[in-house]
């Protein structure tokens, strides 16, 4: 996987979220707040987002790492780390 800029990574994440929740207003998410509740992403939506991210980025998130994905920045940090590791 080629190195992705953080902006590109964020764009990909937002795309995956919008694929599940087209009406989600990701830009007005308060930073540091749990994004799933704010965007009404249930466990099924969340699973679909992870499937999509895996498809696009090749990063498979083990369930034991889910807690690191609580905030959008946390999710992007996590993916960045996994991609550069």
């Amino acid at each position: 996987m080629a190195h992705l800029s953080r902006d590109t990574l964020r764009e990909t994440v937002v795309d995956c979220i919008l694929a599940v929740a087209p009406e989600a207003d990701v830009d007005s998410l308060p930073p540091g707040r749990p994004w799933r509740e704010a965007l009404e992403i249930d466990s099924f939506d969340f699973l679909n987002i992870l499937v999509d991210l895996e498809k696009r980025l090749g990063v498979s998130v083990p369930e034991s790492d889910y807690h690191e994905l609580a905030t959008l920045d946390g999710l992007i940090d996590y993916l960045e780390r996994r991609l550069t590791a």
Partner: protein
Amino acid sequence: MSEFRMPSLGADMESGTLVEWNIQPGDRVERGQIVCVVETQKGAIDVEVWETGTVERLVAEEGQKVPVGEVLAVILGEDKKAEGEKAEDKKAQGETAEGEKAQGEAAGQEAPAEHPTPEAPRAPDLSPPPTTAAPDVAAGERLRISPAARKRAAELDLDPAGVRGSGVGGSITLEDIERATRPAAEEQAAPSSRVVSTSDTHAAMRQAIAAAMARSKREIPHYYLGNTLCVEPAMAWLEAHNAERPVAERLIFPVLQLRAVALALEAVPELNGWYRDDAFQPAEGVHPGVAIALRGGGLVAPALHDADRLAPDAMMAALRDLLTRARQDRLRSSELTAAGLTVTNLGDLGVESVQGVIYPPQVALVGFGRIAERPWVRDGQVVAARCLHASLAADHRVTDGALGARFLTRLTDLLTEPERLWPT
């Protein structure tokens, strides 16, 4: 010969608009096959037929608004003693549906407005319920395509015959049409189609919910029970199950919740059924309704068939299918009538507990809040543990608190000791 009638797909449904026939005179239909699409307040519903036979004639026309119980088509039956014809509704029982071979005038199809007869029969084994058994398209048969997809194809001037269907029985969905118009490279980036309903549809659904919930609060003397339970063992079970699996094959926690509800209902069947004509009528089989919030507003609660008999992965597959179709406005008639109890999970939206409103004529509703760390006492020590609040709202005309408590205790035990959910 029997009459295939407009089914009642909810307590307050008076009529439905026949959007499209999937069959024509002379076609052979299989029990459980989707034969037409009906527009209701709950959106477009794929309506199944409960008799195997041959289509004699179509009575209702596409676009026609048809009252519940009116004849849609006439079908020459083959199998007069089909399971689903065990009509329980005496009023609907025109003739001897259960009789040996009563000229095929079985009235099991009937569903008069005030007494929607849940028709979903218990599947004989773990194979998917008959609702999914629609045969694949055979050469020369009419193209299986959803109305939305047909409309979109017409708008795009695209011949749907060349599109590969990914829907039930190979039917072509709106998404398939959209995909067919996109270059392959764009495919991944494009949002999945979640059919955005019109404001009219929303208003109609809002009305249907209002009517059902007002009736519930007017007629049903609810009682409420609740329990906080520790889900550490259940979460450990889930994490172990999912550990080596790719994301797409993982289970989600609601699978465990639904399984626990299904098994607890087996132990307390008095909470699984309908209150009609001043009496409790038990449901056949365990098909809990799953409350699904629709994006853009509204709510549907289709039944998850045979939740007590599905192995974990089969249950996840069935739930995935149900959630996906609910959000694409592609539910089936049996799914709107089979549930004897509904499960609502609002935990993902951050609430701690739910005091539910029963969906009439059902007699109970189970509510789950969110999983969150709480102080929990274990072996005399206060520890941080992931906990969950489970609640029961039940109809006091049918059960008392003691029975409700038995159910909730059983549910709690099952979710606390997850190895009991699928005993080997």
